[in-house]
């Protein structure tokens, strides 16, 4: 959704697009436009840096400021090299999970239980396509044990949980024969970062608190 009326552009991962769009709407950040790359790129992280470089090139023609809503996302620092060359910032951390859950909390969870498989709202909704089908488990069910052999639990970091999402997340854990933990993170972590990274002087109402408005989303 590129908009000529906007002065800043967020290039985001498709896995974060709905959440960032929600924040833009709730905070009335009308000067920010959003464009997304397919979430499937996470299955080929080596393709992420150049795909983002291309989006930056396209965005420069129209926007004064660009921000990349990707963490390192498995690029092993290559994304940072590209962004340094382009003079563009990105989300902090290595995964968006840390952004939602809080970096220190996420690191501590990872250290305590290295066998955790993390879900977000997006991943719960698209688990079948992005995990089951992308990894070939639908065609070759025997692969499931190879992929998930050493995992012990599913941790669902929910942003805007509903009964249906919670039920689906539990089903995924059952399907993988793993324990299930639900951690409600909301969107505040992402909101704080965007407030810091994007110039908000054109924002109408900075004090808007997402939690107060969750029920309208």
């Amino acid at each position: 959704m590129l908009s000529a009326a906007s002065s800043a552009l967020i290039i985001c991962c498709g896995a974060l697009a709905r959440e960032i769009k929600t924040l833009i709407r709730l905070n009335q950040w009308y000067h920010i436009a959003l464009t997304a790359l397919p979430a499937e790129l996470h299955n080929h992280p080596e393709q992420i840096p150049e795909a983002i470089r291309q989006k930056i090139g396209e965005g420069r023609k129209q926007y004064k400021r660009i921000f990349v809503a990707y963490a390192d996302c498995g690029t092993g620092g290559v994304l940072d090299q590209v962004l340094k060359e382009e003079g563009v910032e990105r989300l902090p951390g290595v995964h968006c999970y840390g952004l939602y859950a809080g970096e220190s909390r996420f690191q501590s969870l990872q250290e305590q239980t290295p066998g955790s498989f993390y879900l977000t709202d997006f991943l719960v909704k698209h688990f079948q396509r992005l995990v089951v089908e992308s990894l070939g488990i639908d065609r070759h069910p025997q692969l499931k044990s190879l992929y998930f052999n050493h995992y012990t639990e599913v941790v669902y970091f929910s942003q805007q949980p509903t009964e249906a999402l919670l039920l689906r997340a539990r089903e995924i854990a059952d399907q993988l024969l793993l324990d299930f933990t639900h951690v409600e993170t909301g969107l505040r972590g992402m909101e704080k970062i965007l407030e810091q990274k994007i110039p908000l002087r054109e924002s109408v109402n900075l004090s808007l608190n997402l939690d107060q408005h969750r029920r309208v989303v």
Partner: protein
Amino acid sequence: MAIDDSSDDINLAELDDKELSLQMQDDLYDGLNNEIAEGTSILLDRGWHPQKVLNEVLVEGMRIVGVDFRDGVLFVPEVLLSANAMKAGMSLLKPLLAETGTSVIGKMVIGTVKGDIHDIGKNLVSMMMEGAGFEVIDIGINNPVENYLMAIEEHKPDILGMSALLTTTMPYMGTVIETLDKENLRSETIVLVGGAPLNEEFGRAVGADAYCRDAAVTVEIAKQLIEERVSQHQQSAIQ
């Protein structure tokens, strides 16, 4: 090529050695466990040495799989199915290779680093290295440095292999290499590192001897470094 009229299945036993070898490489590519096991048995029954079956059929088949994976023709699921099929053949060959006392090119200790439970890549490397004639001691997942040190002390390997899938866990390879240095074990051990988020620059930065992009490349690099080491030792002995 002999085709069984009653079905679309190829009757492997009716193929000559060359046809069967090529058919088995196709079956390996397609991840057909039963066909690989059957073909392996047929070749052994025909008097093929187990090492020949391994090198000329299975390892060569996996090499082709590796090339197509590198070139984006095959993806992880297909490679895993091929690896499983190779396992089916290897399970028949391994005891025979042990009996025949086939010479070992070198010994490798391999494990996934602390905090990381991913072992698909490591398992592929282990299998390909075994196939290439290395003795492999697999110490599993989530290994603190102490595990590597114990395994090195016990097995005295030529090569230490470390694997990581996560950007958060890969720096631990540097910790292990630093500890090897401190314990004066580094110069005795070739250190190879691999895993999806790694690259050559990272391998150099942590002080590994080589970064290995995939299982087939690992075998090539391991052989090359072992040869270099042997020739260095020979030169030292002459001097």
